[in-house]
């Protein structure tokens, strides 16, 4: 609903002149839309209130510049203020004598165990010797889960079944780390409610015994308004040093991150972005800010495009498209340029409004499809690429053999190519339907 905040704000500010200062009334009207966007993104109600108050102070009286219209101006201030609130990415604190202890805490199902494994892999990749400690003796098979992950990843796990108290297990794990020269110990604690006094006391005990460098709250990006209360309580009881936001690969806007940041002041350290064990990403404040505002991640996409696209080639292709002289050779080059930008799924996420397309387009199939198209075009002669119309049955059979595909595949590509040419004519006449169909696969 609020997928395009910029568009909404532009609507609000349409009646304003392009010059002059932003009045209180202008700003208030614009901020109403911002408020809705933030609430839709699950930013806590009170946090939104404080946030908007700060933005208001900055925005009222601001000179509307030549470069930006009022809507963009407000967005810019909101975006900057969001970045300030989110803070910068903070590295793990691995100072002092080793072994360093990293303690993971959080609610049930937030993703602690998976995150512990991902963190260990990451630590190993930067030259550490990690030891995982299975301190969740409550959830059935939580210990077995960590042991299995450890085996898969070849990371040692200290576990003592479920018979002992978690503080004791952590203490023994730390002892083992000292004796066997592990450099980092990652404690996987049980999920618990922040209001469960006994369970919170257990965390305090673990903290006291192991003196961790980091106490990281693992929080689900899909969390709603209650994120604030949970984070406050964990912070009050065990003193958090950072946050790991999980399940960021879904389509939740992740407003909880702002809420947690606001009430605890601790930095966001990592984001969990997938089912694979290397899917832990360093936190990018700008990406999250755009996402919370529902603006996609155009900045990254533009940057990537600038880095990777050959500007001259792109201009030439665009020219050809406009003139509908686009042939198979141009198509191949375009595909190769797009490939340089990274996986399709990543691209779809970054384009505002296209994130939802992932439900219709299977990124993996799309990539396989791209490979097939490349192989088919590569098996064509230059003449065939320029004039696909000359392809007869014999040529198609040869191309199919050469590319390891079938004549049906070749025919399908030709059909889609002709469709695309049609689309381009529409584009140049101002109407277009996007690339969705091209990558729909089979």
């Amino acid at each position, binding site marked *: 609903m609020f997928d395009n905040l910029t568009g909404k704000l532009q609507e609000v500010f349409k009646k304003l002149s392009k010059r002059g200062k932003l009045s209180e009334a202008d700003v208030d009207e614009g901020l109403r839309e911002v408020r809705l966007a933030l609430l839709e993104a699950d930013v806590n109600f009170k946090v939104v209130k404080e946030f908007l108050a700060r933005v208001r102070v900055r925005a009222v009286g601001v000179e509307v510049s030549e470069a930006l219209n009022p809507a963009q101006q407000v967005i810019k201030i909101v975006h900057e203020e969001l970045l300030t609130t989110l803070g910068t990415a903070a590295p793990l604190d691995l100072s002092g004598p080793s072994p360093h202890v990293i303690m993971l805490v959080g609610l049930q199902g937030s993703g602690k165990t998976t995150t512990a494994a991902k963190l260990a892999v990451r630590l190993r990749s930067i030259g550490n010797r990690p030891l995982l400690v299975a301190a969740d003796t409550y959830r059935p098979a939580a210990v077995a*889960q960590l042991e299995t992950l450890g085996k898969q990843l070849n990371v040692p796990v200290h576990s003592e079944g479920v018979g002992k108290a978690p503080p004791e297990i952590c203490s023994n794990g730390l002892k083992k780390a000292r004796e066997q020269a592990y450099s980092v110990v990652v404690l996987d604690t049980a999920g618990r409610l922040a209001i469960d006094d006994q369970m919170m006391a257990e965390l305090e005990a673990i903290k006291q015994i192991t003196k961790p460098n980091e106490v990281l709250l693992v929080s689900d990006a899909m969390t709603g308004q209650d994120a604030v209360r949970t984070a406050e309580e964990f912070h009050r009881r065990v003193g958090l040093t950072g946050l790991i936001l999980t399940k960021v690969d879904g389509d939740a806007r992740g407003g909880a991150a702002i809420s947690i940041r606001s009430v605890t002041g601790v930095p966001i350290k990592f984001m969990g972005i997938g089912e694979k064990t290397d899917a832990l990403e360093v936190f990018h404040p700008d990406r999250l800010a755009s996402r919370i505002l529902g603006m996609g991640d155009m900045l990254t996409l533009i940057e990537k495009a600038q880095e990777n696209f050959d500007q001259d080639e792109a201009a030439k292709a665009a020219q050809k498209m406009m003139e509908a002289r686009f042939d198979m050779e141009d198509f191949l080059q375009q595909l190769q340029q797009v490939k340089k930008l990274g996986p399709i799924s990543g691209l779809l996420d970054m384009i505002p409004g296209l994130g939802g397309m992932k439900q219709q387009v299977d990124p993996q199939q799309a990539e396989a499809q791209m490979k097939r198209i490349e192989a088919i075009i590569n098996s064509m002669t230059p003449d065939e690429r320029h004039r696909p119309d000359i392809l007869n049955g014999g040529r198609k059979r040869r191309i199919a053999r050469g590319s390891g595909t079938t004549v049906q595949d070749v025919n399908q590509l030709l059909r889609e190519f002709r469709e695309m040419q049609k689309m381009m004519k529409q584009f140049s006449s101002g109407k277009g339907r996007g690339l969705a169909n091209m990558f729909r696969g089979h």
Partner: protein
Amino acid sequence: MLERVKSIRDALTRTRQAAFGRVATLLGATEITPEFWDELEALLIQADLGVETTADILEKAKAHVKREGIIRTDALKSVLKAELRAMLVTAEPLDLTTDDLRVVLIVGTNGSGKTTSIAKLAAWFKGQGRSVLLAAADTFRAAAGDQLDVWADRAGVPVIGGQPGSDPGAIVYDALQAAQSRKVNVVLIDTAGRLHTKFNLMQELKKVRNVTAKAAAGAPHETWLVLDGTTGQNALAQAQQFKAAVEVTGVIITKLDGTAKGGMVFAVSHQLQLPIRFIATGEKLGDIALFDAAAFVDGLFE
């Protein structure tokens, strides 16, 4: 049994006091002022009802106030109650007497509480005199099968599983064959958690559903989505996608024993016409209860 009901009541009371208790206070016998509406909005949004649902409820309440000349907040109470209750879809009661096999497919995102809920459901159905068999079709998450085994043991119900990484469809098939030959009443199928945005994993889930449909007549009779009660507005997207993929017929709300309010159930139930079947609240087998819409809404104003 009574004890269990009481503990769920206690847990939910905490939720109510945290959020809706304040609505009740707000709805004491005072006059309706502009500040009242602001505060009501704040409370509903903080209960995770979402911007749209909150605006909707407020608008309806205001219309009542205007039409019926309500001037005091306590009189608004029954109006708000009725509107909130009307948003929750009522389900046909579960048939707990049939001798025919009933298959329930349990789906949801990672960490929403599927496996724990299945254990509780198994105990619940058993308590209703039904024979139960579990299918451990989450072969992806490390030790998910072990987790279900432990629970099945506690609940005293058999479980059919397979090797980690094996085909979930094959396990479902085996489980349904076993259920039919053993004349079991209810089969609960545990599936791997998946984000609703993952195309491949949602396709896989469709496949599991198809296998279920082929392995037993009329199966799955129910497909329940497990929603984490602490989830915010994303719950609606989850429910939409899961419904589109595997024809979800009902919802189970978990983790309502904390301070989260679960207000997103209103939008989920209303917009997708999905009944809420159960509420789960804790870590014990008995921490589950049939969802009672009227009682749930009444409870908000206690």
